[in-house]
C-alpha cells in the first residue's frame, strides 16, 4: 500500500516537473519580443528601446533559458509565485482573487452537470431503446458536440437579450453566476449522461445479477447495492477528463461572460507576456489535475480492489 502510494506520488512529481518545464519553454520560445509586450502593457504607450532593455533585465529575460528557469522554479518550490512583470504586484494574492471567482463557477457547473445527468441517465436506462432513452442519447450527443462558447452565446441571446430574465455580463451579484454556470453544467451533463447510461446498462448485464435476484433480493436493493457501484466505475474513470473540461470551459466562459476569474487572469497575462502569472495558472492547474487524479486512483482502488491487485 505504501509502495503504491509512493509510486502514485512519484508519478505526480514527474508530471508537475514536465509541465513546468514545457510551459516555461513554450513561453520562452514564443515569437515576438516579450520585453516589448510588457513595456506596452505597463505604460500603455510606445516606449524607447532603453526602457524596453531595462525591462528585459528587470524581468530576467536577458539571462539564458536555464538561468531564467531556475530563477523562477526555485522560489516556486518554496511557495513563492513571484511578482507580475507588468504591475510588479505579487502574483499570489491576485491569483487567489481570481480563484475565488472561478471555483464557485466550476463547482456549480459540476453540480448542475451531476444534477441533470444522474436522473436523466437513470430514466434513459430504464427502458433502453425506448423513446426517452433515444432522445436522451440524442440530446446528450448534441450537447457534447456543441462548443461551449456557442452554447454560452445561445443562452445569452435567449435569457439575457430576448427574455431579459438573467444578467449576462460581469459578476456583480450572485445571480450573475447562473448563465455561465448553466453553460458549463450542460456541457458536463452531456458527457456524464452518456457515460452513466452505458455504465448502468453494462452493470445490469453483469452475470451474477440473476442469481442474486433468485436469492429473493428486491430489485431496488439490487440496483442500489450491485448495479450502482458497477455503473460508478466508468464515471470515476472519466472524472479526471471532466475536470479538464471544467477548467477549459471555465476559461472560455469567463471571457464570453466578461467574468473575472482564472480565465480572464490567464488571457490578460498571455496578452501582456506576463510570464510569472501565466506560469502560476498553469502550475496551479497541473497541481489540481495531479491531485484529483491521485484521489481518483485511490477511490478506484477502494471501489474495485481487483485493480492493481496481484490476485486479480
Amino acid at each position, binding site marked *: 500500500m505504501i509502495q503504491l502510494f509512493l509510486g502514485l506520488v512519484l508519478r505526480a512529481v514527474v508530471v508537475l516537473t514536465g509541465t513546468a518545464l514545457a510551459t516555461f519553454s513554450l513561453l520562452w520560445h514564443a515569437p515576438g519580443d516579450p520585453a516589448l509586450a510588457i513595456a506596452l502593457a505597463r505604460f500603455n504607450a510606445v516606449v524607447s528601446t532603453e526602457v524596453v532593455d531595462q525591462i528585459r533585465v528587470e524581468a530576467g529575460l536577458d539571462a539564458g533559458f536555464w538561468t531564467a528557469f531556475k530563477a523562477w522554479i526555485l522560489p516556486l518550490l518554496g511557495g513563492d509565485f513571484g511578482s507580475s512583470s507588468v504591475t510588479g504586484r505579487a502574483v499570489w494574492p491576485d491569483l487567489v482573487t481570481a480563484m475565488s471567482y472561478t471555483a464557485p463557477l466550476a463547482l456549480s457547473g459540476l453540480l448542475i452537470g451531476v444534477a441533470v445527468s444522474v436522473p436523466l441517465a437513470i430514466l434513459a436506462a430504464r427502458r433502453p431503446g425506448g423513446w426517452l432513452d433515444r432522445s436522451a442519447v440524442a440530446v446528450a450527443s448534441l450537447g457534447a458536440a456543441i462548443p461551449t462558447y456557442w452554447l454560452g452565446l445561445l443562452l445569452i441571446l435567449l435569457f439575457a437579450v430576448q427574455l431579459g430574465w438573467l444578467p449576462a455580463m460581469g459578476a456583480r451579484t450572485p445571480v450573475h453566476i447562473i448563465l455561465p454556470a448553466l453553460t458549463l453544467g450542460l456541457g458536463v451533463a452531456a458527457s456524464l449522461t452518456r457515460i452513466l447510461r452505458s455504465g448502468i446498462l453494462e452493470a445490469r448485464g453483469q*452475470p451474477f445479477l440473476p442469481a442474486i435476484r433468485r436469492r429473493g433480493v428486491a430489485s431496488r436493493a439490487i440496483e442500489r447495492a450491485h448495479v450502482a457501484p458497477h455503473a460508478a466505475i466508468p464515471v470515476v474513470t472519466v472524472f479526471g477528463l471532466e475536470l479538464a473540461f471544467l477548467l477549459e470551459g471555465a476559461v472560455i466562459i469567463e471571457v464570453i461572460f466578461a467574468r473575472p476569474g482564472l480565465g480572464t487572469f490567464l488571457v490578460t497575462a498571455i496578452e501582456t507576456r506576463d510570464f510569472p502569472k501565466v506560469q502560476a495558472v498553469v502550475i496551479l492547474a497541473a497541481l489540481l489535475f495531479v491531485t484529483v487524479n491521485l484521489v481518483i486512483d485511490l477511490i478506484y482502488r477502494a471501489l474495485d480492489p481487483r485493480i492493481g491487485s496481484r490476485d486479480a
Partner: protein
Amino acid sequence: MTISISGLSVSRSGRTLLHPTTVNIEPGERVGLVGASGSGKSTLGHALVDALRRQGHSVAHVPQSPDEALDPLRSMGFHWAEAESALDLAPDVARQKALFEALRIDGGDLRKRPWGWSRGMQQRFVIAMGLIGTPDLLVMDEPTSALDPVVAARSMDLLDRYLADRQTALLLITHDLGLAARRMSRLMVMHEGRIVEDAPTAALLAAPGTAAAKALCLHRNWLALPC
C-alpha cells in the same frame, strides 16, 4: 414439503425452450436432471426455481460458477447479510457458524471479496448461502464443471453429509450421467425441451427407454473397473 408443479413452460422469441412439464419431488429426495447441452436443463432449473418461489416455496439455486453468483465488488459478509435479509431473517451468528463448519469454510475471511477466496470455497459459500433458510429444494446447476475434480468432489461430499438428515431435496442438473447416477437416487432425462424419462436411478440405468437415455447410459463412464 412436497414439491409439485405442472404446466411449466418457457418460450423465447417464438421458440419453445421448455414444453409443458410436470415436476414432483419428495422432501429429502435426490434427483438428477440429465441431458445433452442445449436440451433445456438449465432453462427448466431456472423456471422451476422462479415458479416455486411464486408458490411460496423456499428454494435456492446454485449456479455453475461462483462468478455467476457473487458480486466481485461486494464482500462475502455483505452477500451473506443480503441473503439473510432477503429471507426476512435476522442475522444469526450460530446459524452461520453451523453452515460454515458443515461446508468447511469457517476459515474464510468475510471482509474479503469473492476473489479473495479460492473458487472451491466460493462455491461452498454460495451453497451455504442457499441453505440459510433451510429450503425445500436446492437446485445445483453443473456444480462440478467449473471446479477441479478434487475440490468438486469435496463440495459434493460435504453437502451430502449436511443434507443427510434434513428435509431439503436436491436437484442436480448435469450433462454427466456418471455424476448423477453416482450420487442421485432418481433421474430425469431431458431431450429437446422435454423430460423424456423419469425413473429411479437403478431402473433407468438397467433399461433406458429412449434414444437420448440410451446414449447417455452407453457413455456414462470413461472406464468401468472390476472391484
